[in-house]
C-alpha cells in the first residue's frame, strides 16, 4: 500500500449489472467471431508444413540419391512409344528434392531400387511395337547409381515389372508364359536368383478358393523387408483387383485384399517393419469433383484394411523407418509436386511437406517413387 486513497469497491447491485454486461458483450463477441476450424492434429515433434518433402530421408553412405522416380519430360511426351505412351526416364532424387537423370535415353524403364540405394535394376521398353520386332529385345540391366555403369543381368522376353529383393540376392519379375508368342499370354511373377545363372522360376498359383481365380495381369511387385514374401497386384477377368502375397520359401500364395472394378490399385509398398502393406486406391471423383482416392494400410496377417489417407492416390511409398511417414508425387497440377505426410496419434497421415519437383529437369510428371530402406530414418 502506497498510502494513497483506497479504491471504493462497487456495491452488489452494480457488480451484478456489470457482470451481466460483460456476459452480454462476451456473448456478442462469440456470436460475431469467425468460426475456427478444428486444428488438424499434428504428431508430436512433426515439422510444420514445409517445402522439403525429402528432408526426412538421408543418403545411404556415399550413394547419391534418397529415392528414384519415373520421370516424364516434354521431350518424352513427344517421343511416344507404341500405343502412344509417353516415354520416360529414371531420375534420382536427392535429399534437397533436386533430381538428376539416372537414364537419359527415354527408355521407359520398369525398375526397382535395391535397398542399399546403390543399384537400380531396370528393364527398358522396346521402342518398336512387339509385332514388328524381329527378335525378342528385352532383359534386365543393373545400373550403378554412382557411376551410371550398366551391366546386363539377364536376358528374357518381355520383362514387365522388376523388383530386387532387399538383400539383393533375388530379382522378382513379371514374365509371360514361356511357350507362347511374344506379347501374348498372361504375365505372372517369377523369381531369379542373382547372379542369373538359372532360368526364372514361376511362383506357385494361389491356394485359397477366391485366389484360385486366374489373374490376367500382375504388377506392383514389392518385397517384405525380410525378403521372405513378395506382394503384388493382380487383375481378375471381371476387372476386380487383388493384393496377393507369396511366401517365396514355400511358394504358397494368398489373397490379402480385394477391390471391385470401380477401384484401381495404383501402388503397393511394404511397411518397413513388414506388418502391413500400403496401397493407393484410385476411384472416380464425386459429382462435385472432390477426390475419392484413398490410401489404405492392409494388415499383412489378417488382411484388414484401414483407411489412413483420403483424397490422395497415385504412387505412395513409406519414407520413414518406423512407417511414420509416406511420400508421393502429385501430378494433378501443371508441375509434379512431391508431398510427405506424417502419421498422427490416430494413425492417419497429415500433410507436413510439399514442394514442386524436377523443374530444372523439365519434368511434367513423375511417379513410381522408390525409396531404399537405407535412406529411411
Amino acid at each position, binding site marked *: 500500500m502506497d498510502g494513497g486513497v483506497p479504491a471504493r469497491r462497487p456495491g452488489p447491485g452494480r457488480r451484478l449489472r456489470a457482470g451481466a454486461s460483460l456476459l452480454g458483450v462476451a456473448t456478442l463477441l462469440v456470436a460475431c467471431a469467425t468460426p475456427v476450424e478444428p486444428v488438424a492434429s499434428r504428431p508430436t515433434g512433426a515439422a510444420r508444413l514445409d517445402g522439403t518433402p525429402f528432408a526426412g530421408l538421408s543418403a545411404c553412405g556415399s550413394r547419391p540419391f534418397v529415392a528414384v522416380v519415373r520421370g516424364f519430360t516434354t521431350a518424352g511426351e513427344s517421343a511416344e512409344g507404341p500405343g502412344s505412351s509417353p516415354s520416360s526416364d529414371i531420375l534420382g532424387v536427392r535429399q534437397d528434392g533436386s533430381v538428376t537423370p539416372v537414364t537419359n535415353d527415354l527408355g521407359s524403364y520398369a525398375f526397382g531400387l535395391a535397398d542399399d540405394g546403390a543399384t537400380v535394376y531396370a528393364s527398358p521398353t522396346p521402342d518398336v*511395337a512387339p509385332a514388328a520386332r524381329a527378335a525378342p529385345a528385352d532383359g534386365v540391366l543393373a545400373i550403378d547409381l554412382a557411376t551410371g555403369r550398366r551391366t546386363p543381368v539377364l536376358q528374357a522376353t518381355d520383362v514387365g515389372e522388376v523388383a530386387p529383393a532387399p538383400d539383393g540376392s533375388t530379382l522378382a519379375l513379371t514374365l509371360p508364359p514361356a511357350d507362347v508368342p511374344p506379347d501374348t499370354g498372361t504375365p505372372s511373377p517369377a523369381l531369379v536368383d542373382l547372379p542369373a545363372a538359372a532360368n526364372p522360376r514361376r511362383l506357385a498359383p494361389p491356394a485359397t478358393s477366391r485366389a484360385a481365380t486366374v489373374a490376367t495381369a500382375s504388377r506392383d511387385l514389392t518385397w517384405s523387408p525380410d525378403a521372405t514374401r513378395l506382394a503384388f497386384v493382380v487383375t481378375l477377368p471381371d476387372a476386380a483387383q487383388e493384393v496377393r502375397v507369396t511366401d517365396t520359401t514355400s511358394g504358397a500364395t494368398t489373397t490379402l485384399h480385394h477391390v471391385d472394378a470401380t477401384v484401381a490399385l495404383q501402388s503397393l509398398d511394404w511397411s518397413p517393419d513388414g506388418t502391413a502393406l500400403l496401397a493407393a486406391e484410385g476411384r472416380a471423383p464425386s459429382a462435385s469433383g472432390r477426390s475419392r482416392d484413398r490410401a489404405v494400410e492392409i494388415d499383412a496377417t489378417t488382411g484388414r484394411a484401414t483407411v489412413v489417407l483420403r483424397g490422395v492416390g497415385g504412387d505412395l511409398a513409406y519414407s520413414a523407418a518406423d512407417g511414420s511417414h509416406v511420400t508421393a508425387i502429385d501430378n494433378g497440377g501443371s508441375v509434379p509436386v512431391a508431398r510427405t505426410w506424417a502419421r498422427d496419434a490416430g494413425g492417419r497421415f497429415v500433410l507436413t511437406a510439399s514442394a514442386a519437383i524436377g523443374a530444372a529437369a523439365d519434368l511434367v510428371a513423375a511417379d513410381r517413387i522408390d525409396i531404399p530402406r537405407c535412406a529411411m530414418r
Partner: protein
Amino acid sequence: MNARRRRSRHLTALLALLALAAGSLAVGSAADAATVRTKVFELNACDQFGRDPACDSTAAQRADVVASSVLTAGSDVVTLQEVCRYTYDRLLQRLGTAWHGTFFPTVTIGDDRCAPGARSWGVALLVRAAAPTNVTATLLPNPLGESERRYLLCGDVVLGTAVRVCSSHFSVQSAASAEQVTAVGSRLATHASGGGAAILGVDANIDVRACAAAAALRPLYSSTFGGTSTTGCQTGTGVMVEADQARTGGDGTYDAPTCGTRKCDYVFFTRNRWAADHRGVTTSLWVSDHRVLRGQATLSW
C-alpha cells in the same frame, strides 16, 4: 332425294375430301425434307493405365465413365482413339443393345494397360443404330517410318439416313499428320462428291488454334477457320465443317481447347449435308487428359 341417293352423295363427297387430303399430304412430303439432330461424342480415351500418370485409371473404370457420359449427353455417335479393345467391349455392353460399333487395333502393345483384356488397342466407332456395314480401315501415309501406323476407320450406318462415320488418330509429328490430313480430306471429298454424308471424329494432333499449325488442316475444312478469333486465319480446301467452328449465330465460343491449351480433337460433318447450325461443346472426364468434344448439327435428307 331419297335416303339412298343422299348417302351416295355424302359418300362421294367424303371420298373426294379424302383424296384431296391425301394429295395435300403428298405435296407436303415432297416439299419438307426430313431432318435429324446428329450428336457426336469424340474422345481420345487415353487408355494408358500404368503408362501415363495423367491417365491412371483402369480400362474398366474408363469404360464405365465414358458410358455414363455418353448416355447423359444423349449422343448417338461415339468416336474414340487410344482405346483398349476391352474398354470398347465393356462400353458397348454398358450402352445397351441399341448400340453397335466396330473396333480396329492400330498397334500391338507390349504391356497390360488393357487388363483384364488382351493387349489390343486402337480406334473405334459406336452408333445408336444397327451395326456398321462396309467397315474399312484405311492405312494412312507414314512418311517418317513410324513403328505405330495410323488408320482411318469408317463404317456405314443409318442415322435417319445413310451416314458414313469415321474415327482416326493422326501422328504427333507434324510432317506425318499433315500428309494424313491430306489423305483423309481427299477421301471425304470423294465421298461428298457423290452426295454422301460423313462424320469424322479425330484426334488430329494439330492445333487449329495456332494459325501456322492450322494450315495443315486445310484439306479438311471447307471455309475460313483457324486461330482464336471468329474471323479465322486460314481458308479450307476441303468439304467439311467442324462442330466448334466459328459461324454466324453460333454460341459465341469456338475452337475450345481439348488437350491442355490446344484443340487436338475434332468432329467434322460434310458441309453440304448438314445445316449451318453446328455446335461444339467440350467437357472434362477424369479418365482422360483430353476433353470430350460433343459436336452436333442437323442432318437433312
